[in-house]
């Protein structure tokens, strides 16, 4: 059943793609137009952002603390809704997305956090399988797919352990495995290496690179200057709720 749905999804995506190309529409993975975000307490976090991100891009989001990076990221996975403007992902307008549709939307993307957000009572395997269980996938498929992604992040041999028995880097790898287990088109990472030592950071970055090479769009907020300067990708710098710099193979541009 799951396979049929999956195939249908691919087919329908393909059809819409052809349709859009025929009509000379450019489709962006993520597109923000005139986005403003003011919190109920009066803080204006985002003050007019226009940005387009293509499928398969790797984007660093940089900027000083409190510049609006987090809000920017949160709006992409629909944790926050813009006060005005539109955000579309794959043609879906997130600003107008109904509450009921939010879970369905989230199944198309993966999110990775600084604090891993793993369930401490579940094993590594269960934590990853969890993301497929909630979408009621076929148990056989779950088993196969979970082992596949655990292999990708290099933790196949630790599937039965609890998160507390793992190092920080390993925990982050579990959370990355969970974020990609349902083959999302976009992975959003909010300072994924913020809690890790430099060496582990490189391991994690290698995994992100690998995921990106397989065609997944990656948007990563980071404070790590070394990463941005050595693994060159598009850099979007946010200050005061505005994009102040957007370079295709940019530098970090801040003193740490």
């Amino acid at each position, binding site marked *: 059943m799951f396979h049929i749905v999956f195939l249908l999804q691919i087919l329908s995506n393909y059809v819409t793609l052809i349709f859009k190309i025929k009509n000379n529409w450019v489709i962006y993975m993520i597109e923000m137009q005139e986005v403003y975000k003011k919190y109920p307490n009066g803080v204006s976090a985002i003050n007019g952002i226009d940005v387009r991100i293509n499928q398969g891009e790797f984007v660093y989001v940089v900027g000083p603390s409190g510049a609006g990076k987090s809000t920017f990221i949160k709006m992409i996975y629909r*944790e926050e809704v813009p006060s005005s403007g539109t955000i579309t992902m794959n043609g879906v307008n997130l600003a107008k997305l109904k509450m009921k549709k939010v*879970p369905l939307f989230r199944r198309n993307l993966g999110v990775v956090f600084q604090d891993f957000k793993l369930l401490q009572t579940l094993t590594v395997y269960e934590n990853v399988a*969890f993301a497929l269980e909630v979408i009621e996938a076929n148990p056989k498929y779950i088993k196969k797919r979970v082992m596949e992604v655990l292999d990708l992040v290099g933790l196949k041999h630790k599937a039965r352990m609890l998160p507390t028995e793992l190092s920080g880097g390993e925990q982050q790898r579990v959370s990355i495995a969970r974020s990609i287990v349902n083959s999302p088109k976009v992975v959003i990472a909010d300072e994924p290496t913020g809690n890790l030592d430099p060496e582990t950071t490189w391991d994690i970055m290698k995994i992100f690179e690998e995921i990106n090479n397989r065609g997944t769009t990656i948007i990563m907020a980071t404070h790590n200057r070394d990463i941005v300067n050595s693994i060159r990708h598009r850099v979007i710098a946010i200050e005061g709720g505005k994009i102040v710099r957007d370079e295709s193979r940019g530098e970090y541009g801040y003193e740490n």
Partner: protein
Amino acid sequence: MKIRTIGRHARESLKSIGRNGWMTFASVSAVTVTLILVGVFFVIMMNLNRVAETIEQDVQIRVHIDVAATEDDQGSLKSRLEAMPEVKTVKFSPKEKELQDLVKSMGEEGKAFKLFEQDNPLNDVFIVKTEKPQDTMKVAKKAEKLDYVTKVKYGQGKVEKLFSFIKASRNVGVVLIFGLLFTAVFLISNTIKITIIARRREIKIMRLVGATNGFIRWPFVLEGLWLGIIGSILPIVLIGIAYYRAYDYIGPRLTGTFIRILPFDPFVFQLSGILLLMGAVIGVWGSLMSVRKFLKV
């Protein structure tokens, strides 16, 4: 929803009961205490109700028939009484029997009335019973207007008072039971809320990986259900035993009076069913109320 998903929810809810040991204990004891209160109260209410019913059953209307009435007149009066929709039975009681009853009820002094046996001053009487006791007054009024009826007696004044007293006590009982149930739901929703606050993170992560609200809610609803059911076991057992003992003790002492308490079987079994259902409902309701808040983002 798929069957294996239902299985997963059931497993998750049971696991969670085991994991949150102390909170489970707190919720279960809240249900237990409330259901014991409700149960005891229910037992008392139902038995009082039973007594009230027996008293109500004893209320009858005595329609005195005019001496001038012939047998045919009496017959037509009887059929007219029976034709009333509220009336259940009409029984003829000749004046000789009425006198005997009177003599009997007066005891020693009643012997003085024996003189009347030669010239009985009493009337023949129709004893009318109504379908519903509350209709007594209505039927009495209607009967008064019929031909060949001299007097209608049903314990005027007393019956009205009795009925209004029974009605009031029933209402008070219903209000009290609802009050107790409301408190129980409140208590349980609060305890479950605490367990849910402890698991806010879990809910957040579930939402993050794309779980629908329904999917998140189910294990909590089932958990509430289990808590309610577990919580109702002790009250059922306690009240069952207590009622069994009480029935053995009180039952024989009531012989000879008009009061009867409800028999153990089926009353206790019905009560158990009600308590189980109440436990389940308040458990589910409580968890629904508290999980709702965390699903709004």
